[in-house]
């Protein structure tokens, strides 16, 4: 049984409390980095959602766990709406695998 975590600004993550996610509010990227490590190391989480504004700042930290089967660290749009960061990530995966961007070229 794994938990679903969410990391982000207070305003952005409050709503997820009602869904039964384990909600972690942070106010700075350093705090987020520390928290992310603790959550990953606890091995209790299957999925960790992180709002885009922090996902950008913590890119390197997230990258460390990229090739582990668990947890899945997924960025979701924060309060400011989608910045296209999450989609960019999908694009990057395609480029890594195929060598060229074949899904997103318009």
């Amino acid at each position, binding site marked *: 049984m794994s*938990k679903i975590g969410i990391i982000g600004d207070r305003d952005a993550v409050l*709503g997820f409390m009602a*869904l039964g996610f384990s909600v972690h509010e942070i106010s700075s990227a350093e705090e987020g980095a520390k928290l992310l490590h603790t959550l990953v190391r606890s091995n209790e989480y299957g999925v960790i*959602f992180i709002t885009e504004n922090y996902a950008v700042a913590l890119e390197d930290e997230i990258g460390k766990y990229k090739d582990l089967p668990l947890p899945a660290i997924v960025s979701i749009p924060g309060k400011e709406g989608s910045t296209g960061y999450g989609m960019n990530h*999908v694009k990057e995966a395609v480029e890594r*695998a*195929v060598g060229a961007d074949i899904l997103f070229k318009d």
Partner: protein
Amino acid sequence: MPEIRVNPTRMEMKKTQARYQTARKGHKLLKDKRDELMKQFLDVVREDKALRERVEASIEKVHRSFTIASAVTSPKMLEEALICPKKECSLEVDYKNMMSVIVPTFHLDVLADSGSDGYNYGLAFTSGELDTALRELGELLEDLVRMAELEKTAQLLAEEIERTRRRVNALEYILMPQYLATIKSIKMKLDENERGNTTRLMKVKDMMLAAQRQQKQDEDEEE
């Protein structure tokens, strides 16, 4: 392509030929693996892309409703309303073997009080917008989990594809040409030796014939 430096013997040639055959078989297998991985990866990524577009749009909608809700409700009330959820969701994590890449699959388990409407607060002090936001969020839950699963799968597959592609390329452009060049050079050296041998034999034969002729001449003169 520089050849591997080995003794130019028949033995080495046979060995290298066997290695070349193995490399060729491996190359074919890996290429098939790469193609199949790619096929599955593209399916996953296509679904992920569509799902992410939907989820991002929905999340923006939720945030809008939520902002309105927090505008008309005091922050303290809002937190109070949300702090102890009636629902608890956890994930059942399974692992799936996808072309020998171990990927996780998530099954959502929502533990909710039976008969509960899912709203864990009294309706008197909160606004209707909060209800809307939470309902929308609730509908999003399945999609969020599915998206997480797909993105993780895509990441892991991408890594495996990258590795397989490198292997295929190393075999195709480095190892196999190297073996071929080695085989060719051994063959040429062996052939050269063979020719050297033949000319030496011819030369020896000539010398022997010349000696015989000389001997015969000497004998004739004595007579």
